């Protein structure tokens, strides 16, 4: 039985790309549990399997073997349409390159996930209100009709965060959310994520940046398709050793 407070639970998660001699084992038996309202940073060098892990956690990809339970639902063997529904209703994505639709207003970008939501039977104006509220919440109430090319990087990422929130996901996945931003905008975005965390969101973030990782409660290091270390960051968990905290900060 899955713990009802676990948002993510994976058991012996494996992912193999290619066939025969060209086979690459991207993940080899990952066991990971993330509880509700955790803020987790996933780190590791390129090729460590952290991107693959993110794709599977985000239901963009399926594991070759093993089990992935998201908010109590086994999603390891769903088909493409079912995965799309999970992504739509359960997960909010924040990408390094924002991935907003070009030539489309901030408001319309934020509205997008709601149009694909099959459980939502609200009126057009209710959709608009929700989207406007989300944009206000990320501090872009005065930019709703701007198109991405008229916004700064930090503003674009805020639009993306608003978009990630409108369907009230159980999990927010952030892939290098500050990777394309200067340090000031990056810090602002991280403050925003921290604020979401304090409001109860469960956030999993992939990053190279140790400083960025300190915003998270917990840091998981991947190496060779496996979890190398998994520890709580200092300020949140007094029990964590000083050395671990040091690692995370480096």
């Amino acid at each position, binding site marked *: 039985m899955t713990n009802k407070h676990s948002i993510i639970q994976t058991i012996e998660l494996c992912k193999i790309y290619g066939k025969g001699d060209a086979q690459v084992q991207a993940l080899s038996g990952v066991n990971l549990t993330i509880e509700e309202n955790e803020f987790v940073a996933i780190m590791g060098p390129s090729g460590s399997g952290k991107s693959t892990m993110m*794709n599977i956690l*985000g239901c*963009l*990809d399926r594991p070759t073997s093993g089990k992935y339970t998201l908010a109590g639902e086994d999603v390891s063997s769903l088909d*493409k*349409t079912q995965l*799309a*529904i999970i*992504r*739509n*209703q359960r997960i909010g*994505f924040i*990408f390094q390159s924002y*991935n*907003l*639709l*070009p*030539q*489309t207003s901030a408001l319309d970008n934020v509205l*997008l*996930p709601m*149009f*694909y*939501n099959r459980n939502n039977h609200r009126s057009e104006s209710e959709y608009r209100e929700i989207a406007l509220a989300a944009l206000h919440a990320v501090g872009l109430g005065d930019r709703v009709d701007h198109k991405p090319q008229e916004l700064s990087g930090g503003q674009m990422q805020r639009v993306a965060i608003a*978009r990630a929130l409108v*369907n009230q996901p159980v999990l927010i996945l952030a892939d290098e959310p500050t990777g394309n931003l200067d340090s000031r905008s990056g810090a602002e975005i991280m403050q925003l994520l921290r604020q979401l965390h304090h409001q109860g969101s469960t956030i999993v973030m992939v990053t190279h940046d140790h400083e960025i990782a300190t915003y998270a409660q917990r840091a998981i290091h991947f190496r060779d398709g496996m979890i190398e270390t998994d520890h709580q960051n200092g300020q949140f968990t007094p029990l964590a050793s000083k050395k671990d905290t040091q690692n995370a900060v480096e």
Partner: protein
Amino acid sequence: MRLNKVVQIAWKGLSKNKMRSLLTMLGVIIGVAAVIIMISISAGTEKTIEEQITGLGSNLIFISQNFSRGGFGPGGGGGSGQSGGLVFDDAQAIADQVDGISGVVVDQNSSQTIKYGTVSLDDVAILGTTPDFPTVRDMTIASGRYFSQAEVDRTQKVAVLGNSLAQELFEEQTPVGQVVTVGNTKLTIIGVFEEKGLVGNADYDMWLYTPISVVFQKFTPSMMARVMGDRVRMIYVKVDEQHNMEDVILQIELLLAKRHNVSLDEPDFSITTQQDIIKTREATTEAFRNLLAWVAAVSLIVGGIGIMNIMLVSVTERTREIGVRQAVGASPSDIRWQFLTEALLLSLVGGVIGVLAGVGGAWLFGMVGGMRTVIVPESILLAFSSAAAVGVFFGYYPANKAAQLDPIQALRHE
């Protein structure tokens, strides 16, 4: 996703590339316009033919000499034995012995100069006929009367004028009672026909009608007259009821075969009905229409390939967008619908423009081209639904390709 939203998104997608969308639609526009214009031309032609055939009179049987046998060749007069072609007595025999007919007419024609006062007209068609002519050919006397059997029997020198001919000869005067000189013969005008209009290539309104006996006696060249006797060009038989046609034809065949002493396998005459003429013309129109259908089909297919091509380019260009939509929860069928709707919109908008262009073009052909065009409402429906079918058929492959994209690959696409 709701339908109006799908259409809205597709519309946005297309309006971002207005010029490209327009060029893509061009194939469909031309195809649809071609369908409508061509069908309207074909319908116009058909209507003209129909009117001409109606103008010939209904339930008509035409009996003419079969030139492949007997008849007059350049080398010899007359055929073998009695098989000398159609003669006046044949018509008489048909009138007397065949049941189910309401009139028999023979004609022999000539061409003469007509003079009245200072007016002189060359090469006027002179048609020698019999009293049933107005009935059989559905012609109405406007003033005066047509000649009688007695006048034919007595070779009375009388004439009835076609409407235009009467106007050219007499202008404001009353023709009836006047005497005109035809060749060297003076004929008294006893009647004028109402306007008939062009029937086929024949302008019945410019003809002069006179008893056939007058033509035999006065207007058949003497040398030919010696050989041919009272030979007639054609016998027209009007059948009283449509369903008696076959019976009447059989009776005439037997009668003429017996009179001419020929076997039915090798007759020296041929019988044509109006139905045969209609069928021949319908076959011609049909062939024309088939050709048009091919032209239209080819242009619509080319238009469809254009749409498919542009949609494939569009899918490639917008791979990233597809990835984003997939990430926020668009299912394969959502993506498929989006691109299918775009293709459909392209073809439907192209269809609407094509319909407008087609109707306008047909009108222009009618006004400027001097062609008769009739807009057929079904052709608009046909053209429009073909365009829609083209959109769905050629849009499906690119749309499906988009739907099958892997979200991770799509998001990484630059």
